[in-house]
């Protein structure tokens, strides 16, 4: 297994370089370093000297990808791309270009609110969706099943934004049950998280419930299930001990990969509920054209996604003894 993991990590390096290159290219297709300087310095009373000073201070006074004036290897290394990208591999993210705040420090601070929202949504959502899907599978081809599928299709057809705005309107504005937005530290965060967590679960309920139902119904049609029933096993035993276990591979494919990315937060929910997490941080950076933060978050997202894929592969071996690392 170790050799496999090492190999996957080595594969990840060129992927990360390419992701970096792509982010870099997309960003600089629409922005020159001068544009970035003007964006950050504002529109009022900006002198060409101030722009030059900003570029030098932020390392944007060099060529983008190729330094023709440099010698030897420095032609590639004394460039904006190299200098900005290499540091990322040491997880040194530098400072924001908009407000000079240390990005590493911001990530460390902001990952907790993101996790506080994402983990309950993920765990409770998974439990609710699987339970509901098993329920529908148990009552398959009955009115309960048909009604459940209709409910799922209806719920997955509604935009997350609608759930957020509708939830805020009903629960917070009309019924005054929880604060409409905000965040606090420690246990005080709970009252702010109730509504976004519930909405997060509801918004994924339709698609999740339907997806898992399909998996379970497919499994329930297999011979081993018929055999289990023929042996006289209770339906709950059949469902939980056999069907659920055998449906784990497709479930894990979709679930494990997102676990590491949970801490990147939710772009929309964090903005609407005033949760100061990493999703909100990324949105702010995109709006402010803060390349340092965008670059760091894209890199981090890529790393976490790769970690998620590796974990998924590892998890297969835990639930299916037939899977072995080659």
């Amino acid at each position: 297994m170790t050799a496999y993991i090492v190999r996957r990590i080595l594969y990840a390096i060129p992927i990360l370089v390419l992701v970096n290159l792509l982010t870099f290219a997309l960003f600089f297709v629409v922005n020159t370093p001068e544009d970035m300087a003007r964006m950050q310095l504002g529109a009022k009373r900006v002198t060409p000297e101030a722009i030059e000073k900003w570029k030098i201070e932020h390392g944007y006074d060099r060529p983008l990808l190729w330094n023709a004036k440099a010698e030897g290897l420095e032609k590639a290394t004394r460039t904006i791309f190299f200098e900005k990208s290499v540091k990322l591999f040491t997880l040194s993210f530098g400072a924001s270009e908009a407000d000079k705040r240390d990005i590493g420090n911001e990530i460390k601070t902001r990952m907790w609110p993101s996790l506080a929202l994402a983990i309950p949504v993920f765990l409770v959502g998974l439990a609710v969706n699987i339970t509901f899907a098993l329920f529908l599978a148990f009552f398959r081809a009955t009115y309960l099943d048909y009604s459940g599928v209709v409910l799922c299709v209806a719920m997955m057809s509604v935009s997350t934004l609608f759930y957020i705005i509708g939830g805020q309107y009903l629960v917070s504005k009309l019924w005054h049950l929880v604060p409409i937005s905000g965040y606090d530290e420690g246990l005080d965060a709970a009252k702010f998280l109730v509504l976004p967590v519930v909405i997060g679960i509801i918004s994924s309920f339709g698609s999740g419930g339907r997806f898992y139902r399909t998996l379970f119904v497919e499994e329930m049609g297999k011979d081993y299930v018929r055999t289990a029933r023929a042996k006289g096993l209770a339906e709950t035993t059949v469902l939980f001990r056999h069907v659920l276990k055998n449906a784990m591979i497709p479930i894990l494919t979709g679930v494990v990969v997102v676990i590491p990315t949970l801490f990147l937060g939710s772009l929309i929910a964090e903005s609407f509920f005033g949760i100061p997490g990493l999703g909100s941080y990324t949105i702010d950076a995109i709006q402010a054209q803060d390349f340092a933060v965008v670059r760091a978050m894209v890199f981090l997202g890529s790393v976490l996604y790769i970690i998620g894929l590796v974990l998924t592969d590892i998890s297969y071996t835990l639930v299916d003894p037939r899977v072995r690392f080659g």
Partner: protein
Amino acid sequence: MPSPALRALLIAAALALLAGCSEAPWNYPYSAADRDRNILYSVFVDRPKHLDPAQSYASDEAVFTRQVYEPPLQYHYLKRPYELIPLTAAAVPQARLVEKNGATYSVYDVRIQPGIRYQPHPAFNPAHLALDRATIAGLRSPYDLPAHAARELTADDYIYQIKRLAHPQLHSPIFGLMSEYIVGLKEYGERLKKAARPGTWLDLREHPLEGVERVDAQTYRVTLKGRYPQFVYWLAMPFFAPMPWEADRFFSQAGMAEKNFTLDWWPIGTGPYMLRQNNPNARMVLERNPNFRGEPYPAEGEPGDAAAGLLADAGKRMPFVDRAVFTREKEGIPLWNKFLQGYYDVSGIQSDTFDQVVRISVEGDANLTPEMERRGIELRTSIAATVFYLSVNWLDPVVGGNSERARKLRHALAIATDWEEYLSIFANGRGVPSHSPLAPGIFGYRDGRDGFNPVAYEWRGGQAHRRPIEQAKKLLAEAGYRDGRDAKTGQPLVLYLDTTSRGPGDKPRLDWWRKQFAKLSIQLEVRETDWNRFQEKLRKGTTQIFIVGWSADYPDPENFMFLLHGVQGRARNEQGVNASNYVNPEYDALFERMRNMPNSPERQRIIDRMTEIFRHDSPWIGGFHPKNYSLAHGWLANSKPNEMADNTLKYLRVDAPRRDALRNQWNEPVVWPLLLALAVLAAAVVPAVVSYRRRERMSAR
């Protein structure tokens, strides 16, 4: 014995009941301990970028910096027109003109009131000026350090800050401008560049600046090249607030920046408040500075202030509020609803809630709707010292230049573009059409019959009315474009509007622009572009027609009239503010005379003539001055809009018990939906369980 799940449910229900028994509403978003404390609650939308007074220039940053930093001067809170009064200075300094080697210099002696003390801060404790990295790494805030100290404000602190404008590691937006005036500042910047060493604190006390000297412990002298009477307005901005050298030294220590402990984030001042909590992602908290000297609430205002209760606190020592909590709200819906629930004391009005809040009477007056009045909400309006205008590029061969043809074309467009309709459709009427470059409230602005623009309007029945479109068509024909076609070529006249409005929500606005030009059968092509490209086009002078705006730095006509000053043309001078690239030698000559004059009838006459030239040439096809609408709950006293001053927190007073009572009344929890949801869940689960049991008991078929 109940099952674990049932037990958890019962505990949750008990907790919910207990929460209901406490006095705080369920949706109370703050700490329950603060419920009836003397705290003001407000919001901020965008993260502040800079809180360093040398760098901060944005109004959303001023909300914080202006409560902490105290420049020598401030604007009178109540009087209009805006009036400069001393803040830490003993008096508003007067320029003394000095001739030296054939050149004129303006000398300002600024005397500071004695006995003013800084807020308590660890930077004033010498033990904290040599901290090790480990100590810094363990801090969550600079205030976590023990043994805070303070000292008296001196003239040296003001000198230190002026020097910081030239600091090579800071980006002061006014360094370029001030270098033109403060003697030796430009060269000082060059000297500091050479003296600066990476990772080493640059002690500015060791580097004297020629144009700024210490006269005595309480007085400093600033020498400017030539005359620049507007300099006193800059003395009311945080750029000229004092900076103790200890603060600079404290935050320059290794390890501070990695913790985001910088002067850009942790201001140190003498003002009524100090920033104790700084989380620009969620919450900023200003707390009363225990060392603040106290300042009496103004005893004079403009007519109507006394009747409005704005003088009830005259002479009382400020500040009134102990703490101000600013919560970040990025989205409008939660912000508005929390204001209605009483959790924010003040709010603006968004377009989508405007009709819910304001009714415009037949006379055009804005009034609150009965629902808002029932809640005791108060509406405050003020016209911003801002102008948004539709401009032509003077360098453009079709619409620019001073030919008679182009001028008549611009006049026709000025008549056709119905700004009253624009404001009604797109701004809920929140604005007034502009008749000159000057915003209302600025010296030189004329109202009524004396102030209307006769090019686009005519005076009838005691009001300015837009001229009929037929007159515009006639002018267009005289310009050689009868029915929107070029008389020489027969080709339709196509004009181009450059704009950064390109979202789906902007389409109605762009269609409206096309409609205005179509009144004259002129085709308007909209060239949508991003902000960077738009700015580049302005710098290169390749636009044709565009919309831009300007917010005044200070209430002086110079700060508006320079938008049309020839040498400020953006295509010639990259930093120029004249985006239109307009040039008129007579206007320029008058501007040079007017800019350095004190307000006087003579200055008014010059402004009148400049306005006349502006209207005749019409480089702007009209525009408007936005009207700011803000709402405040009835428990907030002394709130009056002031477009120039941002240090307004100290004047506000909160009736916390009244607020608390109303919050409870407005936020009683409605529990039946919860019970209904539980009932629905039970109704869904119970038949399923019954059905499941029946199935389990069923014999094989």
